[in-house]
């Protein structure tokens, strides 16, 4: 990634973004005339690196920094080993350590969580501030301010663009994986913004997860997250109907699922699980895999899914996990069994503010033939904020009672 290489050399994110922009401008000028290079990413990173180096030389009032930059150039880069099943993607050879260092810097726990996500989208993925603002439903100046503040803290507090020492890695990696997961969700669950931007966010998140997995092949949770994103993203085309309406998993045309992404995700998950070091992303991925390997909705192994949600409770002991488990139990053992589990959660305010809780109850009540209660549950969901396609879906279900 061009920004990462440049940031590493000049130690300054703004300068790096400028250098990367200069590189892109040069590409726009050169590529139509000279043709596209074989590896555009490496070409851009190379140009950005030279621009950044020029800048460092111009500002050579700081000799220590220039020497460090030269040393890094001379030393070349860390080479990641691709995890099995991970598509061999051509990456600029000395971009690897730079890119990983930049990701760890942007996801540093000394930054506010919302700022980590925004900064990663801006500086690692190169997404425009306006698009990031749209994805999180905040005004653009607010988002710009959030990003600027994070950059200032990085400089003022001395947050370095390095991969943490092995002893610090587990905690720091968890923060990185969380950010990637949030970037993906911002794209997958976006409630507004153009469809193209949403797709870009999902693709960027997958690409980030791929980079982290390739660079840290000994970390099964990174592979688990990549597997989860691939398995989820594989259903993207089937999830939205022709009229832009939401299509539930059970009703999706499974022939629209991206089979290549599914087999890559399944391979990665298998490889991760073999390491014998389970974690929440591996469990989430295993749940997603239960859906992907079912030829039809009716053949889904709900008992297995219910057990996996039980396992997930060890890592994420939240009401949302409990509710998901209740739905899986209902699918395996009948709606009344699920409703009994949900009943114990009805007083949890965090859950009752979550439309999916009411939707799940409504669906189970419908299946149990308790129509009046189902209508009440749908109404409770409609009182809460949710994306337009989902709202339309709930209204349709309510009307069909």
């Amino acid at each position: 990634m061009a920004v990462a290489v440049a940031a590493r050399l000049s130690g300054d994110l703004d300068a790096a973004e400028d250098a990367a922009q200069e590189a892109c401008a040069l590409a726009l000028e050169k590529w139509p005339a000279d043709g596209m290079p074989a590896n555009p990413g490496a070409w851009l990173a190379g140009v950005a690196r030279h621009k950044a180096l020029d800048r460092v030389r111009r500002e050579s009032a700081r000799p220590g920094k220039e020497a460090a930059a030269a040393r890094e150039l001379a030393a070349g880069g860390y080479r990641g080993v691709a995890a099995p099943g991970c598509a061999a993607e051509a990456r600029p050879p000395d971009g690897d350590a730079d890119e990983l260092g930049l990701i760890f810097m942007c996801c540093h726990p000394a930054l506010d969580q919302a700022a980590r996500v925004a900064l990663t989208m801006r500086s690692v993925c190169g997404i425009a501030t306006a698009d990031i603002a749209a994805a999180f439903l905040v005004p653009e100046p607010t988002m710009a301010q959030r990003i600027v503040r994070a950059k200032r803290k990085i400089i003022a507090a001395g947050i370095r663009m390095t991969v943490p020492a092995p002893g610090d890695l587990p905690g720091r990696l968890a923060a990185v994986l969380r950010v990637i997961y949030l970037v993906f969700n911002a794209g997958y669950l976006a409630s507004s913004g153009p469809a193209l931007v949403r797709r870009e966010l999902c693709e960027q998140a997958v690409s980030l997860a791929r980079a982290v997995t390739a660079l840290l092949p000994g970390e099964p949770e990174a592979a688990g997250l990549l597997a989860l994103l691939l398995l989820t993203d594989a259903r993207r085309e089937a999830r939205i109907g022709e009229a832009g309406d939401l299509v539930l998993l059970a009703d999706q045309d499974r022939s629209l699922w991206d089979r290549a992404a599914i087999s890559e995700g399944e391979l990665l998950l298998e490889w991760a699980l073999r390491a014998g070091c389970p974690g929440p992303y591996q469990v989430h991925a295993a749940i997603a895999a239960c859906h992907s390997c079912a030829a039809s909705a009716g053949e889904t192994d709900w008992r297995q899914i219910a057990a996996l949600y039980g396992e997930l409770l060890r890592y994420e002991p939240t009401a949302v996990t409990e509710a998901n488990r209740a739905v899986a139990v209902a699918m395996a053992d009948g709606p009344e069994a699920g409703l009994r589990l949900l009943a114990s959660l009805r007083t949890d305010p965090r859950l009752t503010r979550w439309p999916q809780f009411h939707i799940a109850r409504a669906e189970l009540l419908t299946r149990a033939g308790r129509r009046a209660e189902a209508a009440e549950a749908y109404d409770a969901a409609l009182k809460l904020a949710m994306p337009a396609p989902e709202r339309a879906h709930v209204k349709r279900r309510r009307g069909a009672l």
Partner: protein
Amino acid sequence: MKYLILLYASKPELPEPGTAEFGQMMTEWAVAKQAMSDAGVLIECSPLQPPSASTTVRVRGGETLVTDGPAAEIKEVFGGLTLIECDGLDDALKWAATLPTARDGKVEVRPLIQTGGPA
């Protein structure tokens, strides 16, 4: 870079000298200071007299106003400081976590603004 680590204790009073508690506190601090000193990062590490010994000074319109007590009333007690010089925030946070105050109170890591020549 230089980092000031502000030590916020959970209790206003230090243990009584001569007690086992006091001895343990002294030992813990000696260990933490020795480690920072061995690593060559330690510049200063001192406890402060309690806030009751504090005096706040303001100069307004050329007039000096002196008031008893700390500048800001907070629940925690600002009880000491540690000044270190190390490579970056990750190092500073690592050292901050070795300080005894981090275990029962909390410590805040503030970078110093660099003035003059290269850091």
